[in-house]
């Protein structure tokens, strides 16, 4: 295994479950336990539990926290009521994506951010730089990076509520979609979040790393009792791609703006100011030259994978695949690529080049799959 990889507090639990461990975003994480296909179907049909301890957590608090985050992030955080969260983006000055994240308002002037493992250092650098640059008369803002101290689990699938009831009791309040419940336990703070990365009902929860293994054991037992499985990053990737959710590093990067990525809904372009706003306003006025576009293979073909060339029906090079896979639910290849606006209308024929051969594909609306 590559050196200097960080380990989840659940590392020993994964080994005990015979997980296949792989490097991901600087961490050694389980890619699968029993098998990617079975794990994928478990989440679509019953329930699965994922280790998401690699993800980062930041708390931003103080009287100036709302104004600070509205300056740093694209979505309008002033619209969040306490107990609610939303998807948002952290941009650089050029409008390029540093990270995509979920911001929850856990109190009137306290926010809980869940950020990508591979971007914890960049996010922290950006937030602390903006913090240091704030005017001296600004209201107080405190930043805390809790990432190393937190474990995290995602429970996803139609049986998630049953698992929740087993873990927290039948009378406990379930975190409905985009809500957050924070609780103080003798071991430390926990956050229950009505979010996920699979398109299914479910919740994510973050707990003190010292208690993560105990929670994982109990959750695996509860999940298995509902006919579900512990699931690795392999299934997490196919599940999110069926929903057309972007993955930072594949589909999002400083080279692309959220407008190009089709995430304009999460950018409050008209709010007073945020980092990257001018670049996005200019791009919007000039018109997009690239759009993250979904496609599907239209004949028997190898699974589409990142970096394979995307061509027009006439053979003209258009771009390359950012994310691609065989969809376990749909049983055909799906993917996303940044394409010129001439080739983004659903039904537009494309070709994907795989090992020197071209295979037919066509532009498809996202999500590729709609859960029941």
């Amino acid at each position, binding site marked *: 295994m590559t050196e200097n990889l960080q380990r989840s507090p659940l590392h020993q639990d994964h080994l005990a479950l015979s997980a296949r461990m792989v490097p991901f975003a600087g961490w050694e994480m389980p*890619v*699968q336990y029993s*098998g*990617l*296909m079975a794990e994928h179907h478990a989440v679509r049909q019953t329930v699965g539990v994922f280790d998401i301890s690699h993800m980062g957590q930041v708390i931003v608090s103080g009287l100036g926290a709302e104004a600070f985050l509205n300056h740093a992030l694209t979505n309008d955080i002033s619209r969040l009521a306490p107990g609610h969260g939303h998807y948002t983006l952290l941009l650089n000055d050029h409008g390029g994506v540093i990270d995509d994240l979920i911001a929850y308002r856990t109190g009137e002037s306290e926010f809980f951010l869940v950020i990508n493992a591979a971007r914890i250092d960049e996010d922290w650098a950006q937030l602390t730089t903006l913090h240091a640059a704030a005017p001296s008369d600004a209201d107080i803002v405190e930043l805390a990076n809790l990432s190393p101290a937190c474990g995290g689990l995602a429970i996803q699938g139609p049986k998630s509520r049953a698992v929740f009831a087993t873990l927290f009791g039948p009378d406990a309040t379930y975190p409905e979609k985009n809500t957050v419940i924070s609780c103080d336990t003798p071991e430390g703070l926990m956050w229950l979040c009505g979010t996920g990365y699979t398109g299914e009902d479910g919740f994510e929860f973050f707990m003190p790393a010292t208690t993560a293994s105990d929670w994982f054991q109990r959750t695996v037992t509860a999940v298995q009792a509902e006919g579900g499985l512990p699931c690795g990053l*392999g299934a997490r990737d*196919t599940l999110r791609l069926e929903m057309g959710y972007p993955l930072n590093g594949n589909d999002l990067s400083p080279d692309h703006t959220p407008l190009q990525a089709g995430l304009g809904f999460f950018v409050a372009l008209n709010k007073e100011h945020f980092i990257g706003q001018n670049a996005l306003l200019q791009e919007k006025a000039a018109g997009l030259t690239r759009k993250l576009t979904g496609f599907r293979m239209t004949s*028997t*073909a*190898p*699974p589409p*994978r990142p970096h394979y060339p995307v061509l027009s029906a006439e053979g003209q090079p258009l771009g390359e695949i950012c994310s691609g*896979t*065989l969809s*376990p639910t749909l049983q055909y290849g799906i993917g996303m690529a940044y394409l010129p606006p001439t080739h983004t209308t659903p039904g537009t024929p494309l070709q994907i080049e795989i*090992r020197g051969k071209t295979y037919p594909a066509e532009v498809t609306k996202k999500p590729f799959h709609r859960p029941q």
Partner: protein
Amino acid sequence: MTTVLNHLRYRPSHEWIEPGKSPAAVGITDHAQAELTDIVFVDLPVIGRQVKAGDPVAVVESVKAASDIYAPVSGEIVAVNEALNGNPGLINTDPFTEGWIFQIAPSNPTEPDTLLDAEAYRAHIS
């Protein structure tokens, strides 16, 4: 529990071949299919192609990865397992019989005997 069949010969890259036969069937081992996990696509070689031992001749794909399959010996590809086009999972369920990938007519009929025998392959994967 990985199966290794005594009557076959093995390449360290996990292909098996039938020795003493022409054409000889070639596939991947039980150990290899377990490592690759659910196989979802097989790119078969072209019939009539002349190959040298060690040439990549087929590609076996799981959801996560595409893996090259190498010719265990030199010779001519004389048949491919068309059943894999409709059911690539045959390699997972039956790697040594129904899941064969191609047949090769070895240029040198004794070349398969130079590969690993079952005992040596077991040691290789243990």
